[in-house]
């Protein structure tokens, strides 16, 4: 049909482009700069995103270790802290200013730089062209810009840590008036300006990347690769990109208004404020308006973080169970439902802001509706394991860990999404436990699963398995030991973002537990360093990959050479004849997507 025709013309175009590309490659020697720095090869850009993301993960993780020191050991002094942080840790004791700056930067960095750029930046770049069968992204140049905007955003964010008044310290959500008024907090001075500039650059990076991903998936699939033959990774990355493209501009508009309020005397968010002995002239603004604009991105952002992990986990579970993913169409349908609902639930973050109760009730309904597609996904993953032949590669372990964490964290979402319970649990440690498990750790697990699984394709080497297993078991046990007890603190009403609980009669009973959590957090952090070491050591000295398809997978990336160059396939791009999940069909262990359908093959 016409759809086929479109596909054909596009793949033809791609083939032509390729020939041009290849002759290009033969004539020009690639310099260090064009190959490793300003590279337009999607695989190199993916690695750039990954390694920058890892840098931020280490820094963001280290920040959490530092502020957990304060919560876990509020009475102890650590002289070495003063050596590192100077006036921010006078006498070896983190000051409240530094504590809040650390908490805020930890949140911002982990949510945006690690789990957005580091996760979908890495895997969308790496997997989309390889799995749809394309030479590169639709626009390699914009793709390169996407990385460099992210890099610039990183530099600006990093610089904000070194300004005299400190980095922004009003929480990663940056609610005005706190974030709008330098008089309300030192962190809201220069630090906040830099935070806003950095985030604006980051939005540009996300948009450039997202548009590219969408264009590539829709237009550059190889011959025979219909939308329903795409691996679930690609479907997930597609919905992720759509979410980002539609919601980041709204966040950006919120930031623009905030910049105006901060610098040009407007009153979008400000009204009736008396601060530092002065009544401000601003009247008629609404501080809640910012929250609507922020969460209109903020909630889809949760799924921008989670969907790529879901997609990769679906793929990895199927490959390593040697069995098709159960309910492929239901998986796509539930991704679609989640993507739609992601836009319709933002106000569940605002149940206690004085929101109109009727509006609140609609958001309760839509929020709890998300549990349905989420449940479908979980049951489908479980059924994928059922009667399979499971190989516990480190990637598979992290995929199983993801499912476990997604269940644990997803179920507490049912508590918090119900406004009458949220009115009690909002902004307590229950929320901290919930989103760290379901969004933070689960997505990190998705990311680790992806790294372990595709590392052989990225670098032509294997990661060390033993280190991988140690990494997995310590991290999953540690993550549960850190975040599970936090639910109990939340059920005691213990508020989040407190520097010290000792003056509170209601919340001071968890001293020992806080110490335990902080200690485990340090161990888990150290274990991540072990992974980091494994990663860089294996790039150079890891066991070499000698077979094209080490996991016995069906998807196209495993049909490329061991170390694919720019353009991915030396000859023509392979044609696709079937969906990517023919594992264990008709007694065959796996059937690659490039294998034509046999005459006597069974139909399902």
């Amino acid at each position: 049909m016409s759809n086929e025709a479109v596909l054909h013309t596009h793949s033809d175009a791609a083939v032509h482009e390729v020939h041009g590309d290849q002759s290009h490659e033969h004539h020009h020697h690639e310099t260090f700069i064009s190959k490793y720095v300003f590279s337009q090869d999607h695989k190199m850009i993916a690695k750039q995103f990954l390694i920058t993301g890892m840098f931020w993960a280490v820094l963001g993780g280290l920040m959490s270790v530092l502020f957990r020191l304060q919560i876990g050991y509020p009475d102890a002094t650590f002289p070495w802290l003063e050596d590192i942080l100077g006036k921010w840790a006078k006498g070896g004791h983190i000051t409240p200013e530094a504590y809040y700056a650390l908490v805020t930067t930890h949140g911002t960095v982990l949510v945006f730089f690690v789990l957005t750029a580091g996760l979908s930046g890495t895997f969308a770049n790496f997997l989309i062209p390889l799995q749809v069968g394309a030479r590169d992204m639709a626009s390699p140049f914009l793709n390169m810009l996407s990385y460099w905007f992210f890099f610039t955003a990183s530099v600006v964010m990093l610089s904000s840590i070194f300004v005299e008044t400190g980095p922004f310290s009003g929480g990663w959500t940056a609610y005005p008036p706190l974030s709008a008024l330098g008089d309300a907090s030192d962190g809201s001075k220069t630090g906040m300006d830099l935070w806003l500039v950095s985030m604006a650059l980051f939005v540009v990076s996300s948009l450039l990347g997202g548009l590219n991903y969408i264009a590539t998936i829709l237009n550059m699939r190889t011959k025979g690769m219909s939308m329903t033959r795409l691996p679930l990774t690609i479907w997930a990355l597609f919905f992720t990109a759509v979410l980002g493209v539609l919601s980041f501009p709204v966040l950006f508009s919120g930031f623009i208004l905030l910049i105006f309020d901060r610098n040009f005397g407007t009153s979008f968010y400000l009204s009736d404020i008396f601060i530092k002995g002065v009544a401000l002239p601003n009247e008629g603004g609404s501080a809640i308006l910012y929250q609507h604009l922020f969460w209109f991105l903020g909630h889809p952002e949760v799924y921008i973080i989670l969907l790529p992990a879901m997609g990769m986990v679906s793929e990895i579970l199927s490959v390593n169970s040697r069995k098709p993913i159960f309910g492929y169409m239901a998986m796509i349908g539930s991704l679609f439902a989640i993507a739609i609902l992601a836009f319709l639930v933002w106000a569940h973050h605002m149940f206690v802001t004085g929101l109109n109760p009727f509006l609140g009730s609609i958001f309760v309904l839509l929020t709890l509706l998300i549990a349905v597609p989420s449940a479908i996904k979980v049951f489908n993953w479980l059924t994928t394991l059922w009667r399979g032949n499971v190989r516990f590669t480190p990637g598979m372990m992290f995929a199983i860990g993801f499912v476990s964490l997604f269940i644990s964290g997803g179920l507490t979402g049912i508590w918090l999404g119900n406004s009458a319970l949220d009115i009690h649990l909002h902004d307590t440690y229950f929320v901290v436990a919930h989103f760290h498990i379901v969004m933070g750790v689960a997505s990190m697990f998705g990311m680790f699963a992806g790294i372990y699984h595709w590392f052989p394709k990225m670098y032509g080497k294997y990661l060390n398995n033993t280190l991988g297993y140690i990494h997995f078991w310590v991290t999953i046990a540690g993550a549960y030991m850190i975040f599970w007890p936090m639910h109990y603190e939340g059920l005691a009403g213990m508020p989040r973002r407190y520097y010290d609980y000792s003056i509170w009669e209601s919340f001071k009973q968890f001293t020992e537990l806080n110490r335990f959590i902080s200690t485990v957090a340090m161990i888990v952090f150290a274990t991540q360093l072990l992974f980091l070491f494994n990663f860089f050591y294996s790039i150079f000295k890891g066991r070499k990959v000698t077979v094209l398809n080490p996991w016995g997978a069906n998807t196209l990336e495993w049909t490329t050479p061991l170390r694919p160059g720019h353009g991915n396939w030396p000859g023509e791009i392979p044609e696709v004849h079937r969906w990517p999940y023919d594992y264990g069909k008709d007694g065959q262990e796996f059937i690659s997507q490039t294998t034509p359908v046999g005459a006597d093959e069974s139909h399902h």
Partner: protein
Amino acid sequence: MTMFLTIAVVVLIFVVIFQIAKASEYVSVLKGEDISRKQNNKVNGFLMVAFLVLGLIGVWYCNKLYFGKTLMAQESASVEGARVDSMLWITIAVTGIVFIATQFILFWFAYKYQENDNRKVFYFPHNTNLEIVWTVVPAIVLTVLVVIGLRNWFLFTGEPPKNHMEVEVTGKQFNWIFRYPGKDGAFGKKYYKNIDDATNELGLLWDDQLGHDDVITTTMYLVKNKPVKLIIGSRDVIHDVGLSHFRMKMDAVPGIPTTLWFTPRYTTNEMKEMTKNPNFVYEISCDQMCGNGHYSMRGVIDVVDQEEYDVIMAKQKPKYLTTFPEKDPSKPVDSVKVAAKMAEPATKPIAKL
């Protein structure tokens, strides 16, 4: 010194782990990758079940240690909060069953279906009936939870009973100011540009007679079994009135007043007995990040019975009289001075009236 020692120990542990990992990789190459993969598979398959069992024991142990320290172990101090508690229990039951069942299935399947040369994989790409079942069943269960939740939500956010009292709560960096309407039962008007930290922390407009009997306190006094409606605002940034014992919470937003109502059902003294904690006190915690002193923004609520409340309130002097002592009927009046004082606030803008 201990610092370097710690680092040295950590590095040493790293090196040991790394050497073991490297050695095991060499061994696996020597033994043949297939054999070593199968060995790894057995070990990890066993660990999956071990993790499930130890994890569930951990869940039980954590509950044993900490349940008593949560509010679940205490009765809600408000009538409405009791509904939150019962809803919590229903939600725990539902999600708890699903949690145990799915985690069990996940780790059990991982163990049971670990690689085995004799097993023929079941090619099972989809099954419409199964998928319908696990779409419809969660949808029905969730509908029940939504109905329970929304009934409570509309009660909490609806109008308080007619016999309620009102207290105004104003947040500022980093404490709370409480205002009572006084005998006339109505609050006087205020305007933020009239705020003066020394004499008029809420910016009350003295032209408004209704405000002349308004009382400002630093502790919130509430009456047992009498519904109270809080009228919540902020002077600077967003705060949040967190009332964990009453299971309630509402943001304090500058420029946009919010409300919250509940019915305290135990006095502070009764709670001291019930919790067996002689230091028990109802605390207001700020639950919305509001600056560097956020963690110390503490308010105190004293719930008493009606007689005691009347005694306490009789002792409070209206703000108007403490600001203008000469207006106090119990004191001699200098009429000229008062006239001058009265004229002063009138010159300030009163656009917000």
